[in-house]
């Protein structure tokens, strides 16, 4: 078991998501930056779907009460184990009484802490990803206890790797969305030449961009949406749906982010900028 001494800004438990319930309106949820999660789970020889801790912007203080092995990935939020600095993509042994805490955010926005065997929180509809009201709670709070299996015998095949941060890219790659054909020349030129900025409306449900483009008057029947769907509002606002995004929407879906670019965007925060490239 692990005890959350201080919970930080927004810390949740996530796996790869909740599949098979789109038809009743349940968002897929799951880790925002799947690439970072897969790498950490791989180093721990975990199932890729093993549940990890997703840490947004500021880190928690965590007390480990059983021996195990952990691996950090994603954003760099100066982390320490018993006050000694630790790096991403290192397999580290923890033991009873060890404390992991975090300092200043260096780059990215979402860091991950994976543990050997994954966190053993309650599974709801096939997934441990926190998303209220499907799960009872929406994030970890001070004093919460999180279960994991005791492990003293793990021998990692690789104990440390140097990995380039995929998320430092300053562009997103997109496919045409179902309503791409609605865009006129001036809208197309704006989308593919402008530099866009992440607005303060950004969370696990959606990222709104600060810059407006030319709007539209197209009205359509509500239809399906996916993580990575870029919607254009009549006022010309671009809204990019993320992992907790609703499963249906009524705004034209002009673009669809590549899965890799969803990971890139998941690591951007208020004020970060990027351009958009058509694949």
């Amino acid at each position: 078991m692990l005890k959350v001494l201080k919970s930080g800004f927004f810390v949740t438990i996530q796996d790869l998501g909740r599949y098979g319930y789109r038809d009743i309106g349940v968002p897929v949820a799951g880790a925002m930056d799947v690439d970072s999660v897969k790498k950490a789970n791989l180093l721990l020889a975990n199932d890729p779907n093993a549940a990890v801790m997703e840490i947004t912007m500021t880190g928690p203080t965590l007390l480990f009460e059983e021996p195990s092995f952990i691996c950090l990935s994603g954003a760099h939020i100066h982390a320490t184990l018993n006050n000694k600095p630790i790096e991403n993509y290192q397999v580290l042994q923890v033991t009873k009484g060890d404390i992991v805490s975090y300092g200043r955010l260096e780059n990215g926005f979402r860091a991950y802490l994976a543990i050997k065997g994954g966190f053993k929180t309650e599974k709801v509809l096939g997934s441990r990803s926190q998303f209220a009201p499907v799960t009872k709670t929406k994030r970890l709070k001070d004093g919460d206890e999180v279960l994991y299996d005791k492990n003293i015998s793990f021998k990692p095949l690789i104990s440390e790797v140097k990995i380039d941060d995929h998320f430092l890219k300053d562009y997103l790659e997109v496919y045409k969305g179902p309503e791409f054909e609605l865009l006129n020349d001036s809208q197309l030129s704006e989308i593919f030449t402008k530099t866009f900025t992440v607005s303060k409306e950004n969370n696990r449900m959606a990222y709104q961009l600060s810059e407006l483009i030319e709007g539209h008057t197209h009205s359509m029947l509500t239809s399906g949406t996916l993580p990575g769907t870029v919607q254009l509002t009549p006022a010309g606002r671009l809204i990019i749906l993320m992992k907790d995004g609703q499963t249906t929407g009524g705004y034209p879906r002009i673009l669809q982010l590549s899965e890799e670019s969803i990971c890139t965007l998941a690591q951007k925060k208020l004020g970060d900028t990027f351009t958009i490239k058509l694949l």
Partner: protein
Amino acid sequence: MKSYPISIKPFGERAVLVEWPSEVKESILADILDFMEAFKALKIPGWEMSVAYNSLTMVYNNDHLDFEETQKMILECHAEQAKTASTRVQHLWAIPVCYDLEFGIDIQEVSKTLNLSVEELIQQHTSHQYVVYGIGFLPGFMYLGGLPASLEIPRRAEPRLQVAKGSVGLAGKQTGVYPQDSPGGWNIIGNCPVPLFNPSIKEPCFVKVGDKIQFHKISKAEYELHKIEAEVGIYKPAKVVLHA
């Protein structure tokens, strides 16, 4: 059963969007549901499908898709399906609503705007069967069609920051039930004590797309009773089987 022309568009790396003519129509919904039934019968693991009015989003969770191949498979399946009779079963669900002023916080204002007495408004709201054209927006939120024109009223000018779970609302051509506490701009005329989404059971949503629902008026005492029944898990919504 009538078969409509369909068009298929790529939707990212592992999904496609299948579209029927852009209308809200029961025969279109029936063609979509027949297609889904035929596609499911192919028993290809990894596919997840969701309907909204005239479209079907098909997500392949197992891998990236080859669009041309997927398109061909869907068109063939749709053409084949037209030849066989559907065995789909649909239900008509009776959904209890308490229209007391305590829950129907906008019902007096709405009845004034629509030039109906509160009793007439309730009578009209409960005398129609509504078709479930999709479930989305929130887990368990039903997109319902078939609202009589006499009950059409614009959304509230200012959305509320919190609408209570179970609230029954009117907005434009739509009526519906908020399955959870949520911000919202609909005019609230009552509350349904029965949860439309319950993640703690195997089938969290008893209503399926293609089903119909009809509201019926209950008293405050019946409301409290159904609420307790639902909480302890013994409430069984009344249903009638309809054949497609």
